[in-house]
């Protein structure tokens, strides 16, 4: 078993045994090597998204947890939110440059639930139309890097 599988196995165990409020792993849609997950989440009571149900898709590379997972909303119901594009992409720093291997599926889900909960007005991101038309399929903020200075 690779270290990525081992780690995800443990996360899965913890999340099925003791799931956080409003978050549950959809075990029917797990891929066999655990590299793709679907997590059902529910808007917290007393918020704009109360009792709305959404699906989050997780994709992990073999370098997880050193590489961040690719996380986006799936299916017909995408939350209308200033940081969530209508194609499911989420603008959340812990999914890109602030990712740390100490984070987990659970901490990502809780961050997203809390991002929904703190929303004051349901509206799309200002640049939604353009972004959805031009963005890459991978919502992980694309890396940029340096060429060797000496070239």
């Amino acid at each position, binding site marked *: 078993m690779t*270290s990525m599988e*081992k*780690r995800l196995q*443990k996360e899965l165990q913890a999340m099925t045994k003791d799931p956080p409020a409003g978050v549950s792993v959809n075990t029917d849609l797990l891929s066999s090597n655990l590299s793709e997950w679907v997590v059902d989440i529910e808007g917290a009571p007393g918020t704009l998204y109360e009792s709305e149900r959404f699906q989050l898709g997780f994709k992990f590379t073999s*370098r997880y*947890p*050193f*590489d961040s997972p690719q996380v986006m909303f799936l299916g017909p119901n995408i939350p209308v939110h200033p940081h969530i594009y209508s194609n499911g992409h989420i603008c959340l720093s812990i999914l890109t*440059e602030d990712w*740390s*291997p*100490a984070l987990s599926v659970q901490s990502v889900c809780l961050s997203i639930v809390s991002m929904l909960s703190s929303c004051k007005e349901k509206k799309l991101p200002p*640049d939604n139309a*353009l*972004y959805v038309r*031009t*963005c*890459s399929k*991978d919502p992980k*903020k*694309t*890396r*940029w*890097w*340096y*060429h060797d*200075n*000496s*070239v």
Partner: protein
Amino acid sequence: MATTSNSIGLGSLLKCSDEKISVAVRFSSNQSYIANVGIKDTILDLKKAVALEANISPRNINLVLAGQLLTDSTLIQDCGLGSHTTLHAFFWSDDGLASGDVCLGTTHNDKKTLQTQPGPSMESSSLDTVHNNEISSGVHLNRQEDVPQRRESDVDGDYLLRRSLQQTISSLGTQLSACTNIRNFSRFLVYCKLCESVQPGKLRLCCKQCGSGAFLVDRGPCNWNDISSDTSIRGTCKNLNCSCDIPRFYLRCCQHHEGDIDGTAVGLKHVQPNSRRVECIICSDVMSHVLIFPCSPGHVMCLDCFRQYGSTCLSERRFIEHPFHGYTLPCPVGCSDSHIEESHHFLLLGQEKYERYKNFGAEEYVLQNGGMLCPGPGCGSGLFPATDDRLIRCRECQFESCRECRREYHVGDCEEYLESLRLDLSNLEINNERALRASWERESTNLIEETTKTCPGCQTKTERSGGCMHLVCTRCRTEWCWVCVKPWNRDCQADHWFG
């Protein structure tokens, strides 16, 4: 200084033992003996072997390991000795005074002249004290022996010496009972450059001033501060010519290595045996050895995950230049005050990555301190140009570069020069090989010029393969706009954040 090294055939002295090791015993006079002993032999057996060779009584020999006196009944295997471990010895004359070194020191080339210094007879009450401590079974005096008369002139000095020695022994008695097994010290782990791995460290010490290993400490070290260069531990140097009371601790790999191995093992203060069986914060496995970050929760990472964590952060240039600890990494949870405090921990990433780590660290230091890196092909030396001239000449490779555009030095405007580079395709040499290389480089240069923009902060060529227009340079931390190629501002955000 002449050194005697003789192997001693112990034969009859040895009890049954499976494994034998060679142990070097060195007196502070630099006289050494090598004895082959079985690991199930006792320290007394070792003393007997040395005594036979040195023509002195075994009870006059005191052996010191890591600043502690070794008791006669201790088994060799419990001392954590390896083959060719050196034990330091000082001589204890029959009057209870550690005066032998003076004698040995002056006669180290002629063992037959070994003599004990004359000394006073000791009070029986003080003898009992020493004896009851049980650490001095090799030290206790035989009252039946003739005690030579001491010279009157030595009274005060000898008395003081005896007093201080008794105090040392009393405090050692309590220390040794708490710490009977010297292997306990292996909680100090080292990275051994010869084994290229983490190994238990053998803690050794010597006198800070004269370097003699015959040095007794008042207490054993408990933590890394205790064995640092400004240790609070004090002790007594048994070299009578030396009055220093400060020990210098150092670590060696527990494996046997031939030859001079000074400096090949470096202590890893954040790595410890996982005695509390804490899960790794990354893989949640419980591993035998872990790295503990110096944050207040003490987050724990296994060494495999630390290797991956370090390698990933290195290739993404996520290390930071810390004001005290240099180029380093924090705890992945993001705790404050959690940076690895000692750069040798990054040896765990392997030799090649460690070299890269050192290079990156040096580059970061140069850039953060207002310097630049030479853009000469294959150079990259750190430069701190003294003048404001646009022409910068590298001291290493003599490459001349332009301060403004960080390209080869040129006359005139940087933009015009760049344009001329793009157009100038005709100037190839006749030599085919060289022409091929030149055209390849030209292609490569053109590609870089087409696909990258330069960070307005540090001029680093930067490629953007997607995402928004707001870039943060991982080299100089400048936030800049891909469209304007200027520092990021509100207008960029309002106008073309996403293109």
